[in-house]
């Protein structure tokens, strides 16, 4: 056996030999490829998300870059972004370009299931892990696809759990008939499906109206009239922000009132609804308490108030007109946080190693988006949001506050039904 001083010297020599090699292998930058919709139907959802991601990258680089465990040092990040113009076919081509030409280390999809659908098969074909920010369609996830993880919200079949569970409580409030109006895109159609199943499973409830509308529908007047004609006790409406604005405008124009109204995006993008002059229609309506308004206690990253202040300062200082703080901005920051922690845990930039690293965060990280918990297929099981009712007060935008009404253990108030 060699003397201890000789072993120590050998170890020191080997370490000294290995360190420069590790540094030499380290890339000069971590390339993060992403798509965003700079124009088109989905721009209002996508742009705030991308702006938040840019802010995150700027913050990371000001701090010297992101720590990459495999290289034992901080490395600056470079965001490579392409505008897919809300076109799924263009998104597929640009995803391919990010992988094959830009050779990005980390691949992010655009916001929404509509756009993510284009990137999923391309990423899988190239064996590139897709960091799926908000594309929550259950269709994207299967046990045989190792190349996708969902970051920003629970997958759509789990996402409406609170409202689907609450449907069982409706007869206790006196609700007997239910109407469902939904955008036929995956994200909203799956939510409607979960609620429809809950209604159909309850013998005391009757589904009196159940209609889908194309994703680009921006006029709901006729539909709102038709819903009113069906005389439901409760209306549950699922749409993207552009749908919600049009839906609420139609209610405003018709002077329509529903005793129980649930909207999918009314609360999530409340500032946008306020800007469009329709937020008054949301009084006493119900919505899932999005992480943009419900303050989770994070164990990593900024909390809701801190991020909101930083984001709004960034938007103002960079003169970004029309970019509102909301769930999508938060989802962009959430994506940055997950990437950051993944790289801190990854031994290399190999795509399956990135997958292992991101799964190591599951159950151990809570951000401002809620607990980060991955199912084995890469879909998000955490980030389940409680059901809230928007009531007069001063805690939200303008003159509203939020009462949590379900689940029971989180409830802060009882539902007010019928709406005054």
């Amino acid at each position: 056996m060699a003397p201890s001083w000789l072993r120590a010297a050998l170890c020191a020599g080997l370490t000294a030999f290995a360190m420069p090699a590790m540094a030499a292998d380290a890339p000069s930058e971590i390339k993060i490829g992403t798509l965003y919709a700079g124009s088109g139907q989905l721009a209002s959802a996508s742009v705030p998300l991308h702006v938040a991601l840019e802010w995150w990258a700027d913050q990371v680089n000001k701090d010297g870059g992101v720590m990459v465990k495999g290289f034992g040092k901080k490395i600056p990040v470079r965001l490579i972004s392409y505008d897919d113009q809300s076109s799924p076919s263009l998104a597929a081509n640009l995803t391919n370009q990010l992988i094959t030409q830009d050779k990005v280390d980390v691949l992010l999809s655009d916001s929404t299931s509509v756009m993510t659908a284009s990137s999923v098969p391309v990423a899988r074909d190239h064996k590139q892990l897709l960091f799926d920010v908000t594309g929550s369609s259950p269709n994207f996830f299967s046990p045989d696809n190792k190349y996708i993880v969902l970051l920003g919200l629970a997958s759509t079949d789990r996402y409406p759990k609170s409202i689907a569970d609450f449907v069982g409580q409706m007869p206790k409030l006196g609700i007997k008939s239910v109407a469902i109006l939904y955008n036929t895109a995956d994200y909203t159609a799956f939510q409607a499906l979960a609620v429809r199943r809950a209604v159909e499973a309850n013998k005391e409830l009757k589904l009196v109206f159940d209609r889908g509308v194309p994703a680009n529908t921006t006029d709901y007047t006729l539909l709102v009239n038709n819903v009113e004609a069906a005389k439901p006790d409760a209306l549950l409406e699922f749409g993207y922000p552009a749908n919600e604005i049009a839906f609420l405008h139609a209610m405003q124009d018709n002077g329509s009132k529903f005793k129980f109204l649930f909207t999918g995006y009314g609360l999530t993008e409340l500032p946008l609804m306020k800007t469009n002059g329709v937020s008054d229609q949301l009084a006493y309506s119900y919505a899932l308490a999005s992480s943009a308004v419900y303050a989770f206690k994070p164990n990593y990253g900024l909390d809701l108030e801190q991020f909101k202040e930083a984001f709004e300062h960034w938007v103002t200082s960079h003169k970004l007109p029309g970019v509102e703080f909301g769930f999508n901005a938060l989802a962009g920051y959430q994506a940055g946080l997950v990437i950051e922690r993944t790289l801190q845990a990854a031994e290399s930039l190999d795509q399956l190693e990135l997958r292992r690293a991101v799964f190591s965060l599951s159950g151990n990280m809570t951000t401002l988006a809620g607990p980060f918990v991955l199912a084995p297929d890469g879909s998000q099981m955490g980030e389940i949001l409680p059901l809230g009712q928007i009531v007069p007060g001063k805690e939200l935008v303008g003159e509203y506050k939020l009462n949590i009404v379900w689940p029971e253990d989180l409830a802060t108030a009882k539902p007010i039904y019928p709406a005054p």
Partner: protein
Amino acid sequence: MLGYALATGVIFGLYYALVGVGMNLVFGVMRIVNLAHGDFIMLGAFGAFWLLRGLGLSPPLVVAISFAVFFVVGLPLYYLLVPRLFRAREPEMLSLILFFGLSQVIEAVVATLFGNTERSIPSRLLGGKPIALLGQTIPFAWAYTGCVSVLMLAGVYVYLYRTRLGRQTRAIMAQREEAVAIGIDVHRISAIAFGAGAGLAAVAGVFAPFMLGSFTPSLGIPLDLTSFAVIIIGSLGNPLGTVLGGIIFGVSLMLMRTYLSSFADLLPNLVLIGVLLVRPTGLLGRRVRHA
């Protein structure tokens, strides 16, 4: 519900006729396809947003200002772009490319300056209360828009059939070379038609937020497609055929929204395909000469 769907379909049809009539007038006179037409509508919507919501001007004044401004802007735009197109070998094809480029530039500039967020205008700014119709209600804004559409379309009719300039315009639409031969100042008449097309688009834009819910800088291309469908169903090159096309399009859309809302966008386009297969010149296409 059937009666309500038909009635609202006619109202929307009149609005869609207003959306398409400017594009059809330009095509009828110049045989060029103005793909920036939808962007003129989008700009009209932005103008209404600031004038109605920002400055609080009265709706009739906003309509008048929008028409006048876009008419005046359309005149130099015509002289800048269209005479050059006519010197090309295939002006129709070239116009598609040129105006598509212009459309993209307009959209990009507006998006850069004002962002992509949805904007809308509260209907109460048009005044009035919901109007009872067949046991249901329609927003006052729809009735207002329907009336303005009728007035604007009537204005186009009067211009084309009751004025000297209109007769000259129809002469060019019928046979450009013969119109030149009898001394009509083709460029002057065409410039007026181009300006009028832009003005009509701007007026359609003023009411877009009320009829289409909300708008973004990306509104242009979908409205171009709607305009195409409307004017092809009616008759390409015949501005008054646009009224028939608009009503068929509007009624189809509302029937689908009432009975099969998931496929609401499908029927109008099926009607378009059907018309093209059965009567390629459009329903009122007999009087149109081929270029």
